[in-house]
């Protein structure tokens, strides 16, 4: 893989800038809430500016190469270096994490959840941002692991302190599941390090040399990584933490979880597990595909049974990530392209849905679908935004969701050489049925919440979308439409990198 070392300070600055904000926040007095919010806002705007600079100096003709590469000594004794870079797969996700954080900060300016304490809340959010961005740029397994773990504690506290009634249970469950996965993942990382001659933890190096490991060993190492990443995605049957975490988390936490954290898992498959262990990937792919379609159907059925709006959106994540994993499991560039697009689209759409759920909760003080209704008459703008997002989520052509879902299903028609075509075509049919179910539960949700007449409650206090909400939401809504109409904006960046990643499978 080609490495381009130009402007190699850009990524480090973009990743660690939020930590500077954390330091400033630490010395800001707790009582001065205005100053705290200002610092958080400025930090996240500055981060996005650096991100924008990264985007504009990115060489799109060489989206398949690592760019802005920087390397520095870090832990020489275990041959791990501070080695970072982005290619076409990392870049969209890296920028997504920055933009989502900024929007969440904007939203939080007047929505700090109970019990308050914006200082701690914003500090955690900025630490999260560093962890998320770092994971997408790390080109060294140990560095990746450190960033991957860095997001755990802030999210644990965000759910546990600012969450709903069952927050303590949900936060611990989230943590234990993820930690179980990452413990086995670390063992797998060490195993691949030793099996490639204990030379380096560098991801490009391991991609180069991992294929030389004997197949039966590869299968075991892949198993360790699989557990680590699959918990994070989450794939059936490791998904049970997700509905609890999403439902209990504060709106901001849900948005970040859905928009970025889940992608750490799928990104791990695309960046690490599959290119490093191609033989094992071929062996595992049908199983991954199988779990993915089970997830699609299971998530959809789960949605149909939910009475809580937020929990329904959470289960829909299980189904959507199923499509992403199905695309990945085909091991074709077509499928992986769809998967990476799906990650970004799901981040935008489901993130938006959680924002709306938060705003609905704030207005109606409940998310019980039975008690909602008539959103379109009481808050028509909010109602229309919800409509747009449900349409995007069910994969309506012309909106971003379509380009993640449809090509993923299509790719299963023709999986990579060495995979059983019949099995994948069965998967394709099941996944297609999943889209019908998705349309079912999303339209049903929309019908029950937005149509009809308002039920009970004090009607006076229902106000429509506020300015701050517009500020936080418009960029996401625009992105959903733009990527839906011109998907090539993304595909043209992703594709060269995917081709590069899947070289071991003959394109």
């Amino acid at each position, binding site marked *: 893989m080609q490495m381009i070392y130009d402007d190699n300070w850009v990524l480090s600055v973009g990743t660690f800038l939020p930590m500077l904000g954390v330091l400033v926040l630490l010395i800001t007095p707790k009582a001065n809430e205005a100053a705290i919010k200002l610092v958080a806002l400025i930090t996240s705007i500055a981060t996005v500016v650096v991100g924008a600079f990264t985007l504009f100096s990115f060489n799109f003709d060489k989206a398949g190469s690592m760019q802005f590469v920087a390397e520095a000594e870090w832990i020489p004794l275990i041959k791990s270096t501070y080695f970072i870079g982005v290619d076409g797969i990392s870049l969209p996700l890296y920028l997504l994490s920055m933009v989502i954080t900024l929007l969440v900060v904007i939203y939080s300016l007047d929505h700090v959840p109970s019990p308050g304490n914006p200082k701690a809340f914003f500090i955690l959010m900025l630490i999260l941002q560093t962890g998320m961005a770092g994971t997408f740029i790390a080109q060294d397994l140990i560095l990746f692991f450190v960033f991957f*773990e860095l997001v755990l504690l802030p999210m644990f*506290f965000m759910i*546990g302190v600012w969450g709903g009634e069952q927050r303590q249970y949900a936060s611990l469950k989230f943590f*234990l599941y993820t930690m179980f996965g990452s413990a086995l993942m670390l*063992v797998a990382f060490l195993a691949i390090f*030793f099996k490639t001659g204990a030379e380096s933890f560098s991801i490009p190096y391991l991609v180069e040399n991992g294929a030389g490991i004997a197949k039966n060993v590869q299968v075991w190492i892949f198993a360790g990584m699989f557990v680590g990443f699959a918990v994070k995605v989450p794939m059936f049957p490791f998904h049970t933490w997700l509905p609890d975490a999403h439902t209990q988390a504060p709106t901001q936490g849900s948005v970040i979880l859905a928009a970025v954290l889940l992608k750490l898992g799928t990104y791990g498959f695309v960046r690490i597990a599959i290119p490093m262990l191609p033989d094992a990937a071929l062996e595992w792919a049908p199983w991954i595909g199988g779990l993915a379609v089970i997830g699609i159907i299971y998530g959809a059925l789960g949605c149909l049974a939910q009475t809580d709006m937020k929990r329904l959106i959470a289960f829909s994540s299980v189904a959507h990530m199923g499509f992403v994993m199905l695309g990945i499991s085909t091991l074709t560039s077509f499928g992986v392209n769809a998967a990476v697009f799906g990650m970004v689209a799901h981040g935008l759409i489901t993130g938006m849905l959680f924002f709306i759920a938060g705003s609905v909760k704030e207005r109606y003080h409940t998310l019980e679908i039975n008690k909602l209704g008539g959103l379109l008459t009481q808050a028509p703008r909010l109602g229309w935004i919800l409509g747009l997002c449900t349409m995007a989520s069910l994969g309506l052509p012309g909106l971003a969701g379509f380009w993640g879902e449809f090509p993923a299903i299509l790719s299963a028609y023709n999986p990579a050489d060495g995979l059983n075509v019949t099995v994948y075509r069965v998967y394709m049919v099941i996944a297609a049925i999943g889209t019908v179910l998705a349309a079912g539960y999303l339209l049903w949700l929309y019908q029950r919440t937005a149509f009809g007449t308002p039920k009970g409650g004090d009607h006076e206090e229902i106000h429509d979308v506020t300015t701050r909400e517009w500020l936080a939401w418009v960029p996401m809504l625009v992105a959903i439409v733009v990527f839906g109409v011109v998907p090539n904006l993304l595909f043209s960046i992703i594709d060269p990198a995917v081709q590069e990643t899947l070289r071991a499978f003959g394109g």
Partner: protein
Amino acid sequence: MTFSAAYAATYVAPTIDYHALAPEIVLAIGLTVVLLVDLFTTERNKWLLSVLTGFSLLGAVLPVLTLMLHDNSVRSLFDGRYVVDEFSLVMKGLFLLAGYVIVLLSSSHVEEGDYWRGEYWFLLLSSLLGMMMMASARDLVSVFVALEFLSIPAYMLAAWRKRDVKSNEAGVKYFLLGVFASAVMLYGMSLLYGVANSTLLIDIGKSIDLDGSFGAVQALAIVFVVVGFAFKVSAVPFHTWAPDTYEGAPTPVTAFLSVASKAAGFTALVVMVLTAFPEGRDVWQPFIWGLSALTMTVGNVFALRQTNFVRMIAYSSVSQGGFVLMPLAVAGGAAGESALRAVVVYLLVYAATNLGMFAVILAVSRKTRSGEISSLGGLFSYAPAMGVLLTLFLASLAGIPPLGGWIGKFSAFQALLTDATPWAYVLAIIGAVNSVIAFGYYGNIMREVWMRPVPHGDTTPMITPSSIQIALGITAVVTLLFGILPGVVLRFGEMAELLGAFGG
């Protein structure tokens, strides 16, 4: 040197390398001064003693540093019975600095608690001197003397709160089981001497050879010696004293036992298995494998059930001991070097983190006057700095990057995977699963600190003595530094060929 030769030769005074012995000498002078000053000062001036103790510890660090920087050669004294090498210097540095932090933690506790102050500092220094000797002892007799030297003052320190039944129980339990362990070990040592006809560890190592006459006696001797140290490091099933002793002893003493005393036990265990029985690995490797798996699992499972903070820490430190044993289970094979490094790194990181946690506990219990986990409720809301620090230390113990603990766990896993035998992989998986279980109770405390209401709504701010603040600062910085720049701590594990020093 054989016995007959020693009799035949006329006595010649050995040449003594005073530079090599300087840390011990400084400490010996320090403890004498403390004892004398205590005799001739009035109650009002007893604060001098803690200052003197602190200075003698820092004073002893200086020669350790000069020895480290001087050259890399191994200084062997008294016919190789007392060796100052990189490994022993790193461990001595650890004992002295851990001792210094414990002095910081103890001073307000001892001042306010109506204790016998002079003796407290004297005994603390004596025990530390024993640990220093332990790090260098390479002979059965000196190992045993060092062990007793470090243990006996510790028994007394555990029972320091004279009028408290629990403290008495702590001391007696620790004493009885400790003496029992010494007896078992001594029996093993006598067998070793019988086999090797020498007390020098290297000679024993040469005589215990798998190809030669390796039999039941050798195996029994090895097992007995390992069992003796297993008591010291509270490995399951020899851990039963730990929870009661930790709970009953004064909290700074508990910190001392769970950090310094434990590290000393591991130092001796490492020296014994690598120097005296490198060829007996087929006996001690499986034995330590079993101890390690049991220790981390049982320690964890019991820790999950505790409601008392100190008891939970006791079980957690039992379980952490299992992680230190983990690399030792493969130390006899190809992974020897990385196993030794893992032990050293783990002990360094663990010392900083655990001491930090005890500092928080001491500070908080000054206000709450309780050892229950529930007394920590809402700590973050009224003492945010303390809450964050406790979270850092807990996360480090749980092994979450970017805090120090992860590099310790990482090194341990690395050693196991270097060995690359099926048993090593199995132990690595057991360790991975256990590190997750451990978060169950560490997370429980974090939950208490961040998410639960303050008991009795008592949110008056805490007053933390400056000595504890300094201790908190030192331990927090070290914990973070080790985590973000692991190269710093790994260097200590690498210093020279640690293993080469044992080869003799």
